């Protein structure tokens, strides 16, 4: 049914999106690539020129570079694990015949509507603050010293905050997927005496593969660029304990005002994102096809 003219029309309809995204991607990328080989410091505007790969070697030799790489992957991986595991458990729970499912959903979805700077400052001030936070009050009530979350466990604290923000997304997608599972299959398995865990492992989980794939894909896209939560809470510290690659780039651009080095870091981040994207899409494309 698709004639020559339909094909042409369909090309024309995709063209604007492709062109816009191409420009949106290529222009900043080309500029970043150019800057990454230049001497470009806002504090010494008179000096310019090519510096070869100096900006890159600076980045690779920076004492906190590998830590930042590790932190970036730990943040993405940690949040993915927490949200997928907890999301599945919570979805299983809400999917049971419980009273007030509608209200439950409203409560669970709430963090999704909280913008990152607000989420970060609620957690930092109202909960994790060593004097006035609710956690400190709870510790004191139990007779313990308050835990210094952002000082002693900065990366874990950030992972916790970001997981709270993304948990609703994972839970709701997994819940929707669970609700599309036919109950007959489960009832049959139950009658045949399959224990609860086996029913989950062999019936529910395979049904969720696609949903889990989607959750991982979408969340990774957003998590690779996480910045605001770190900026608001730990500022990458103490030391570099919670510095991620995006945060390291930000420090070079805004604090050190070295645009050349920041650009080199940007290119490294883009390469890292592409490596992850490659594996992700290879591994996941399979599940998403049809």
């Amino acid at each position, binding site marked *: 049914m698709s004639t020559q003219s339909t094909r042409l029309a369909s090309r024309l309809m995709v063209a604007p999106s492709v062109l816009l995204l191409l420009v949106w991607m290529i222009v900043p990328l080309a500029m970043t690539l150019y800057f990454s080989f230049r001497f470009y410091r806002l504090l010494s505007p008179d000096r310019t020129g090519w510096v070869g790969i100096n900006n890159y070697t600076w980045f690779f030799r920076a004492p906190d570079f590998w830590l930042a790489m590790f932190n970036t992957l730990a943040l993405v991986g940690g949040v993915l694990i927490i949200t997928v595991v907890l999301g599945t458990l919570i979805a299983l729970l809400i999917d049971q015949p419980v009273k007030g499912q509608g209200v439950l959903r409203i409560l669970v979805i*709430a963090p999704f509507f909280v913008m990152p700077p607000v989420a970060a400052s609620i957690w930092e001030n109202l909960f994790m603050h060593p004097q006035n936070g609710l956690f400190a009050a709870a510790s004191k009530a139990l007779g313990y010293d308050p835990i210094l979350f952002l000082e002693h466990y900065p990366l874990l604290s950030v992972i916790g905050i970001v997981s709270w923000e993304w948990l609703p997304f994972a839970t709701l997608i997994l819940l929707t997927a669970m609700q599309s599972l036919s109950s007959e299959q489960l009832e049959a398995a139950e009658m045949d005496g399959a224990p609860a865990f086996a029913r989950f492992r062999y019936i529910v989980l395979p049904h969720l593969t696609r949903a889990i794939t989607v959750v991982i894909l979408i969340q990774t896209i957003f998590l690779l660029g996480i910045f605001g939560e770190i900026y608001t809470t730990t500022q990458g510290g103490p030391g570099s304990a919670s510095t991620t690659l995006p945060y390291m780039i930000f420090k070079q651009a805004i604090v050190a005002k070295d645009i050349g080095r920041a650009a080199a870091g940007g290119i490294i981040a883009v390469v890292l994102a*592409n490596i992850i994207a490659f594996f992700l899409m290879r591994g996941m494309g399979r599940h998403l096809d049809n």
Partner: protein
Amino acid sequence: MARAVSPSRKFWTTLAAWSVALVIFFPVFWMVLTSFKTEASAVATPPQLFSAEWTLANYQDVWARSDYPRFFWNSVVIALGSTLLGLAIAIPAAWSMAFVPGKRTKDLLMWMLSTKMMPAVAVMVPLYLVFQKLGLFDTRIGLVLALMLMNLPIIIWMLYTYFREIPGEILEAARMDGASLWNEIIYVLTPMAVPGIASTLLLNVILAWNEAFWTITLTTTKAAPLSAFIASFSAPQGLFYAKLSAASTMAIAPILILGWFSQKQLVRGLTFGAVK
């Protein structure tokens, strides 16, 4: 998956589900509660739940100290503008990908998504310079464009997964009746796709409302939305808890209320094709 279960099991699962949901919701609840306390009450030890001194002064202070209506209006224009513009560009693209798929359609979709993987910080300076040069810096139209482009891949993907669920036979029937391509899109496809378009719209308004990197980097005063408004309040850490909470509540309340009211449409659309 709903099945008949014994009353005692229902009691325990209900109890467990409600406990978990309340824990997840608690930070938002505590923030709203704190916003109505006096500053002294907000930091009192032990924390005060019912014994607190209640006041509206925080809201009055925040309102007097900053131009909330302007930030609010900027947020509305930017979130809605970027989403509507994105939909206008994405609907034809998603339509043709869903109904006239080529060999490379899947790769094209994946490529579009991968453009979102570029960390914003990595291209902050170039984009800042381009925006300055084009006169888009600190303008609402600039942010509408930036957020539209940022969310375009998500919009296209969501619409694509909806459109694919629409049976092709209906379109063929319309074509047999002599409907042109545009008529087909406007009169046949769009009505069937309205639920999908609605949830795409909702999700993207939320994403744009909550975007807090470009909205802060690319504005100073004129076009700054609520994400920038809240950033200006979180500076004096540990001091003004009640005021910070009031400002936070004011920043998230509009989208929280919208989200709660349209929760059903949103959740239905939040599958990204995860459910077959």
